[in-house]
Every structure is written in structure tokens, then in C-alpha cells.
């Protein structure tokens, strides 16, 4: 018995510095485990969860599958310039191409994009906004927001993540604390989704999910 007691004490003492270090870093940044930016292979895993791996799909299919998974209704509104000419000008002045509105209470997400956008930009903008939903970026507590400019980093670099409110998300990792990184990852998700949707079962990342040995 005394031996066991000594072992417990020793274990506790050895673990204390690590726990203190973890607590300090956690309290200062309010962050979870840091992680690197999403890779194409990880995105393919997300597509498999949505049942879109090995399939060709367009932004609407992706939105439907994501909505089903998150148990929310996602509406995409492509607003023609004739209906609301101010939208394009206001978005262009603000430096944005589209906007997403999300209501947790109503389990509803709405994406607004101007119809005057060039087709490729329109597709990527919708996929970008859907990427924010998939990553759980809209669940980040405003108190956890980290501003500041973001510089280009290597793909392997790891970044701090933020805690989120209770809600479902598709991504395995937590959203980044820094807004610029969240935007960069949403861009990555959009580009991965465009290529995955075009290539279907001919994507090398889709192939890798059926050939593990």
C-alpha cells in the first residue's frame, strides 16, 4: 500500500508541470489543440462523410448534403443585378463577393451572391461560404476571435484553434482562432470542392480512399 501511494504521488508530481503548462497556454489563448490547414485528402474524408466521395457534384448538391448532415436548411440566393443593383456595388466596395447568414435557432443558413459575378467566381464564392459552415466557423465565440494580418505560411505549419459554441460541424478539427486563416481554409475547401466535384471518381484523392493497402 505505501508503495502504491508513493507511485501515485510520483505520477502526480511528474504530471504537474505538463498540466500547468497546458493550463497556462489554454487560459491565455482560450484555444484547443493547434492544427495545420486542411489538406485535399482530409477534405476527401469530409466528402465521404457526406456521401459525395467518388461522385460528381455541383455547389447545390454539396449544400444539400451538408445541410442534411448538419440538420439545417441551406438556401443559396443568386440575386440578379436587376432585382437589387446596390448589392453588387456594396459587396464590391466592402471587398467581399458573397455573404452568409446563419441562424442556429431557426436551423437555417442563407447564402447571398450577386448574379453578376463571373460563373467561376460565383461557384467558388458559394463553395467558400459553404466551407465556413462545414468548418464550424460560424460557431466560433466572438470573444475567441483573433484579429491581425495573416502572412503566407507553409502548408505544414500549425495554428491555434478556437473553442466553439455547441453545434454540429463537418470538420474534425476546431476552427482557427485567426479570421484570416479561417478565410484561407474556406478558400482551400472551395478549390478542393470544385476539383472533387468535377473529377468525381477520377480524383486521385477519391482513389486513395478505396485503396488503402
Amino acid at each position: 500500500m505505501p508503495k502504491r501511494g508513493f507511485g501515485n504521488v510520483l505520477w502526480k508530481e511528474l504530471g504537474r508541470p505538463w498540466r500547468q503548462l497546458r493550463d497556462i497556454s489554454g487560459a491565455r489563448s482560450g484555444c484547443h489543440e493547434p492544427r495545420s490547414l486542411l489538406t485535399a485528402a482530409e477534405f476527401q474524408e469530409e466528402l465521404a462523410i457526406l456521401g459525395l466521395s467518388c461522385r460528381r457534384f455541383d455547389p447545390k448538391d454539396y449544400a444539400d448534403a451538408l445541410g442534411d448532415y448538419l440538420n439545417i436548411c441551406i438556401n443559396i440566393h443568386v440575386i440578379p443585378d436587376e432585382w437589387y443593383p446596390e448589392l453588387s456595388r456594396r459587396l464590391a466596395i466592402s471587398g467581399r463577393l458573397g455573404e452568409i447568414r446563419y441562424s442556429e435557432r431557426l436551423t437555417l443558413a442563407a447564402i447571398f451572391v450577386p448574379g453578376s459575378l463571373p460563373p467561376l467566381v460565383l461557384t467558388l464564392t458559394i463553395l467558400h461560404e459553404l466551407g465556413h459552415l462545414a468548418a464550424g466557423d460560424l460557431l466560433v465565440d466572438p470573444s475567441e476571435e483573433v484579429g491581425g494580418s495573416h502572412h503566407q505560411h507553409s502548408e505544414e505549419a500549425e495554428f491555434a484553434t478556437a473553442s466553439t459554441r455547441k453545434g454540429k460541424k463537418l470538420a474534425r478539427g476546431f476552427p482557427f482562432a485567426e479570421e484570416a486563416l479561417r478565410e484561407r481554409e474556406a478558400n482551400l475547401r472551395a478549390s478542393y470542392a470544385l476539383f472533387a466535384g468535377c473529377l468525381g471518381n477520377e480524383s486521385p484523392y477519391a482513389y486513395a480512399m478505396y485503396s488503402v493497402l
Partner: protein
Amino acid sequence: MSAAQHQAFVLGSVSFVAFFFVICFVLSSRRTKFSDFAACNLVFVAATFYAVALLDISGERTEVFLAIMTELPVVLIVAWICLALAGGLPSHLGARPVEPVARRTWLRKVLEFTPILLLFFVILACVVGLIRPSPAMHLYAPAPPAFFALKALIMIPEGFCSALAALTFILAGRSSGLRGRLYFKNLAFAVGMLGIASIAFESTVVASFRVWASEEGRQGILEKLIALETCFTVVCILAFAAGLSLRYTPTVAGPLLHRLQMGWLHAQEQFESLEWRAVNTGAADRLTTASDAVALACRLRNLPESDTEKALATIRVVAMMKDPSSETRYITPEAARELYELQEEILRDSALSSKISWAVNLRSRAQEYQTVKSAPLHHALRAALDLIDRQDQNSRIQARPLWHWIAAVSAADAKIVDSPAPVQLEGQDGYRTAVEAYCAAKTTLQKLDTDDRERRVEYGRPQTQA
């Protein structure tokens, strides 16, 4: 040398030959993480069997230890495969779960737990075997119930894990949209894993016969069961060999796709979005009037809608490249040339270029798609670079389509680029036609504008009493 030692020597030699086969034929032609692991495992198996052949296995405890050592490679193979299916291999091996596992969280958790489960039962069997030793390396000798416990503790979990892995391979093979070769590859691995599961369950039955079968009938039944086990082993090896040899190369290589994502898509998106922003914020005022005249000129010459789009895109790109504002500072002739080269690289790969497409109008039910080639920007970049690069005033300009000339006339009229010299236009009837169409369009627009202004003045005049 006893019969058991002789058998171990033969098995060790077979494993060693198999190792050489893997090194010479499998690893040289197609190296995967699994084939590396299989090669290491075969060395381990050969070493174990040679150790059995060389050592004097007179003691029952030694027999138990060696029996477990000979089972260990198969246990390791099953654990590796289950972990690979769950995507639980170390990240430097680049592992992701197989598609059906990614969709089922429970399956992923079970498969990830498999190595711990198997290891636990191997240790438990080791403890049981050392406490209650048995003639584990004999083939037909009667054995105590502890031998059955030893075998069952290893074989039953191994059998269940193999069966689960086989089921996962079947689910992966059945996925819709899968290419035939990948279907057969997964099917082959499923058969291989079912073979391991069958051997495991059959070994448990053999152990039960050695413990409980009567003396007279035992040897006959065991001989039949061991022959059956040999059949299962052959099927298993052949299935794995088939699975490993079935190759499937995706049409699009991963590095090329990565380069396109980071290079072409990023550049094209930046080009088009900056262009859209510049137009909508009014940063390029000269564009509005020029664009209207270009569109009307194209209509007057009955050009198709796609050609009008190309002419409009050209005038936009030229205006952006010549615009000094900060909004469009990324749109430079160098950036345009780089993007054009990337587009050409995609177009050279016909298999790839035919697949990359995006919807033209997401609001419309009738889906029309745009590709790198059909997108107006591709033609516009070439035309814009052509207009910007026209430095040598003495060289003759090559023949160009009418939409190109209309854009050129419009750009010169808006003072965005210089007009081509008469020497350059020798024999270019298209340019003359474009000038006529553009002048007609401009006159019409000016007339419409004057009429519109007069009408506004008319409406704005106070009504007088009659």
C-alpha cells in the same frame, strides 16, 4: 531433427523465398506501405520458423512460446490492415480511412481498437500457456483443455477482426461509382481476409478435436482439417497477391491537381474577381461606354453571344492591365501571361481539360457548363496580351476574328491602347469591318443618348395651362 522441427524448417524456407519474391518483384514494381510491412513480417516469420527448427523444443513451455511467436505475424498483419482501414496509421504514412469507415464512426472506433484487442488476447494466451503448458507445436497429439484455451484466445479475436476487415473491404468495393479495377482489388482483399478468418476459426476447431476427439478417429479428422487449412492458406495468399498486383492509376495525378489548385484556380479566381470588383466599384469608368459600344457593334455584325462575351472580356482585361488604381494592381501583363500559360497547360491535357467545368448559371434549371477553353477569359487574355504587346510597328498583324478587331478598335478609341499603324493592318479587312461596325454602334448610342436627354428635358419642363 523431429517432425515438428522439419516442418518448421520447411515453413521458414518458404517464408524466406516469399520474402525474396516480395523484394524482387513486388517492391521493385509497386512499393506500398503494406508491401514494406509484409516484407518485414516475412523476415520475422522466417526467423521464427528457423529458430523453431534449430532449437530443441523439448519443453512444453518452449512449445507454447514458439506457437505464439508463429501466430504473431498473422496477428500483426490483421492489426495493420484494420488500422490502415481505419486511417489510424501514423500520419507520416499519409493514411486516411477507407470510404465506408469514414462514413461510419462506430466502425472506425472498432477498427482502431483492434490492435489493442488482439495484443491483449495474445498476452492473455501467453499467460494461460505458461501457467498451463501444452504440446502446442505438435500436430496430432492429444492436448489438455488449456491448449484449446490458448488457441481460442488468439484465434477467435483474430477471426472476428479479419471478418470485420473483410466486411469493410466488401463495403468499399460495393461503393457506387467505383472503377472496376478498384472493385476487384477490394474484393480480392476481402477474400484474403475471409481466408485468414476461416483459418483462425478452423484452427480453433482443430484444437478442440485435439482436446476432445476420441483416439481412433482423431488423426483422420485432423488430417482432413489440416488439408482444408492448407486450401484456405493457398486461397488467402493468391487473393492477397491478386489484390496487390491489381493496379489503378487515376487519370489525373495528385501533384498536377495540387499545382492547378494553387496556381491556375487561384490566379483565374483573382483575375475574375478583381475585374468584377473594379467594374462594380466604378474603378474603371472608361469601360462602361466602351463596353456598350462593343456589345452593340457585335450585335450589328450578327456575331454570336459567345464572341460578344469574348470581346467584352478583352476590353475589360486590357482596361484592368492599363489601370493604375490599387484595386487592379495584381492584374499585370506578367500575371496575365502566367495565367494564360497555366490555362494552356490544362488544355494540353485533353482528359483533364474536358473534366474541369463549372455551371454558367446556377439559377437556371437547364445547366450549361463553362470550361477553361470555353470561358471568355481564356480568349480575352490572348487578345489582351496581343493588343498590349503590339510593340513592333513595322511587323504585320496576323489574321484575327472580328470580335478581336472590335475589341481592338474600342480599346484604341477609349485611349487604352494605341491604334495599330497602317503598315501593320495591310490586308486586314476584318479591322476595317470592325471600325465601321464600331463607328455605327457609337453613332447609334450617341443618338440614343441625345434622344434620352431630350426626353428627360421634355418631361422635366413645367406644364403650361392651355
